[in-house]
């Protein structure tokens, strides 16, 4: 197994699938010659040619629509939206045209498209580069939502997303791109969509997270352990489909839970998870399930983002509140 950071793992997944399936195309703004602003596609155009990996003119809606049109002709497009805030320009093509293609055609057409986008705060990027917009996607019928937290998962989930015959919104946290290296299996390694991962076992409380917040949750669990609290940490990996079974199994053991998300608090992934916990595990709960999230403001780029983003300390505080309920 090779040591890779998340960028390298994503590139490896793209290379494996470009090589395996001649229908896979990779395109977007600046993805070709230089390999994207984060170099996630570096070298792929040289390896697979300009007919497989190419730059497009600068227009996100057209990038999305191009993917839908190509999908109807048997291609498997991977469309990069350069930064998460730019998806607003492409919402119709991603969340309506791609997401509804199977329904609208009664299955005659489908959209095996991966919309890749970097997202997430803490990197001092420009405005509208680092929001967490997964809430928009999970409210949208017909599209899957994937948020990896580590290099191996990023590779395995990316290959599964590319092979999936429905559209996938694949969100790559900017602060994880080069955060650390880890062992990544070689070749056609897949992680199924819809299976969460218990990244740390515990018995007193369940902390549910995804993306970068998995690491923030682990730091909080380390702090809690110092006070003798054993926290279980679940990495959701995918928000649609959501692996509620793993969450429920954990709560049956711990009887307490909190959900951590980087996105604004109201009506997001955490709210949905708690609603499902209510439906399936309320009798196992000793305390209300709390959310640790960003406040309901616009994302404050750069200057005060570290104060805005959920911290281990806020998670510890919420966990203690739950434990002392």
């Amino acid at each position: 197994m090779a040591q890779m950071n998340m960028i390298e793992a994503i590139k490896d997944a793209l290379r494996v699938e470009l090589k395996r399936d001649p229908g896979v195309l990779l395109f977007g703004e600046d993805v070709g010659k230089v390999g994207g602003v984060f170099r996630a596609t570096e070298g792929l155009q040289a390896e697979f040619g300009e007919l497989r990996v190419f730059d497009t003119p600068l227009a996100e809606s057209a990038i999305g629509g191009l993917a839908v049109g190509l999908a109807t002709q048997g291609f498997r497009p991977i469309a990069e939206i350069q930064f998460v805030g730019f998806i607003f320009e492409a919402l119709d093509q991603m969340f309506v045209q791609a997401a509804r293609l199977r329904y609208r055609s009664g299955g005659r057409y489908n959209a095996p498209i991966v919309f890749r986008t970097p997202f997430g705060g803490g990197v001092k990027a420009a405005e509208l580069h680092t929001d967490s917009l997964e809430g928009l996607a999970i409210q949208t019928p017909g599209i899957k939502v994937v948020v990896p937290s580590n290099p191996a998962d990023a590779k395995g989930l990316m290959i599964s997303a590319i092979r999936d015959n429905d559209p996938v919104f694949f969100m790559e946290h900017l602060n994880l791109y080069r955060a650390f290296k880890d062992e990544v299996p070689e070749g056609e390694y897949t992680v199924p969509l819809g299976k969460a991962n218990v990244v740390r076992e515990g018995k007193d409380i369940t902390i549910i997270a995804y993306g970068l917040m998995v690491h923030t949750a682990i730091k909080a669990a380390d702090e809690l352990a110092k006070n003798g609290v054993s926290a279980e940490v679940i990495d959701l990996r995918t928000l649609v489909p959501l692996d509620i079974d793993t969450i429920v199994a954990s709560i049956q053991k711990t009887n307490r839970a909190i959900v951590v998300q980087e996105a604004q608090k109201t009506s997001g992934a955490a709210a949905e998870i708690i609603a499902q916990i209510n439906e399936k595990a309320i009798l196992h709960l000793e305390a209300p399930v709390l959310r640790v999230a960003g406040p309901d403001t616009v994302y404050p780029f750069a200057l005060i983002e570290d104060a805005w983003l959920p911290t281990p300390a806020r998670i510890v505080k919420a966990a203690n509140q739950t434990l002392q309920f």
Partner: protein
Amino acid sequence: MSKGSLDAPAKPGQQAAHIVHSEDVTPLQVLSPEGEVVNAAAMPNLTDEQLKEIMYRMVFTRTWDDRAVNLGRQGRLGFYAPVSGQEGTMVGSEYALTKEDFICPGYRDMPQLVWHGLPLYQAFLYSRGHQHGGQIPEGVNVLMPQIIIGAQILHATGVAMGFKLKNEKRVAITYTGDGGSSEGDFYEGMNFAGSFKLPVIYFVQNNGYAITTPFAKQTAAQSIAHKALAAGIRGVKIDGMDVLAVISAVQEAAEIAREGGGATLIEAVTYRFRPHSMSDDATKYRTKEEEQEWALRDPLVRFGKYLETKGLWSEEDTARVKEEAKAAVNEHIKKAEQTEKMTVAGLIDSMFETTPPHLEEQKAEF
């Protein structure tokens, strides 16, 4: 799969420069409103049988539209956008293509879909909100009608890129109206097509109104055809009430696209005789005089006169086709009404290839 090319034009503006000028463009016409040939050079090469087939389709489409309006009033159709007046652009543009060419329509463009191979009862089912209406049969090269104005323009652009990558000599055509030409997707699509030199035809049926908003308020551009210049593609303006001008322009654009010459924007000036939809009242924004003036340019009358002079068509032919069309509409609306009803469970199963657990669970409620 990818073996074609995505080469940009050698010189920017090359495709457009000799077509669109800064002067006013006179719309291409083959027939005068009186049905006389005014431009023999642009006359498409069609046999007598083909000419009669085109007239057959136009009369059939007009009758179908008359019937559909009534069916709508009876509640037997759902959303329906009338087409009368636009038979020249709709029938003509489809007729100029091959069955291998691919259509990305707007919601009014049902005739193009049906003449391209979509069974009429499915067009009715689409109007009624039945999913089977969008279940395009294998081998029929069309997408479902698009509701979001302009979204289909980008799909056609992607379809055309697919053809080019696969080295297939096929063309994608997409339709929108004068209102659609103001959408961002319209510019984005044409710009992509220019940049990748794609085999696509952007066909704008300029019927003078975007629901109620008149063309004068839609744009300050000299014409919609001029907008091709900005994207570096061919731009053509034609008389959309002249079916032969439509066929001539689309055939030429398709031939150029097939030979690797890139995209064309066609602005066809036309008029819808009826309101925008069944819930619209055109008398609120159009004058009687204007409607009467356009009625004189009726594409059926013009082409009919031409065929009558050639001895190819008569009043009796029109009467016969009307009867055939009425019978076909009756048969297909019955078939639509007898189609198995949709269920919420079926709807749930149409969201993903494999229904995920949360949706399986929701199915249990229905």
